[in-house]
């Protein structure tokens, strides 16, 4: 399983085509019929203000091990083939890519569930914090959303059934 996970925290941008090609693998591998990807992009406004970008802080010693652990958990829970979890840090302008997750599986539902699980848990468990940089020069830490903690919790309750 060693090279079936691609986990990374980086300041540099990423190329979705390259990540997808890695997820797909080549014909020498057993083929997973389903590949799901999610990419998050910096929005140009929130409910109140126009934004020029965001700044992402993280807990550097913890982030990568936590992403690897998350990928391994998803892989075993949803019987995924390959998994990518990649997050950028630092200052990102509007429209830049922030985060990518990808999951492959023989069946599409597992690939969709795996990718959603990765995103939901990433938003509840990985030590990353977003500060919005407003167009007028203001800065504001983003507050965690109840919606996101509920999204993460649904995987707790489903695991008990």
């Amino acid at each position, binding site marked *: 399983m060693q090279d079936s996970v691609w986990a990374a925290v980086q300041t540099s941008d990423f190329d979705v085509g390259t990540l997808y090609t890695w997820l797909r693998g080549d014909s020498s591998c057993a083929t997973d019929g389903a590949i799901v990807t999610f990419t998050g992009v910096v929005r140009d406004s929130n409910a109140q203000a126009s934004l020029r970008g965001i700044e992402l*802080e993280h807990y550097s010693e913890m982030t990568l091990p936590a992403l690897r652990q998350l990928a391994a958990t998803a892989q075993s829970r949803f019987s995924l083939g390959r998994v990518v979890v990649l997050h950028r840090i630092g200052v990102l302008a509007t429209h830049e890519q922030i985060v990518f997750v990808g999951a492959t599986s023989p069946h599409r539902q597992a690939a969709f569930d795996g990718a959603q699980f990765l995103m939901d848990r990433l938003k509840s468990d990985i*030590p990353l*914090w977003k500060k919005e940089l407003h167009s007028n020069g203001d800065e504001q*830490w983003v507050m*965690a959303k109840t919606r996101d903690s509920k999204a993460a919790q649904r995987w707790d309750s489903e695991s008990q059934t």
Partner: protein
Amino acid sequence: MIQVLFFAHTRQLLKSDGVSLDAEPGMTVQTVLDSVSERFDNWDLVDADNLMCARNHTLVTRDTAVISGDTIAFFPPVTGG
């Protein structure tokens, strides 16, 4: 010795990256937090009820035991993704 770290909004409110504490028998994350809170005049700005905590780079609950050599991090609910 216990190394305590702060991140993000918490770090900014406290104007501190972290502090060191002497280890004491029977310490937990909660007692570390109580002890830290007394060190900062502006602690009441922190939403302490909702702080998350990691012990040695793993998320833990407040009843988790803490021993000498541990690194304890306190931070607001995470907002990546």
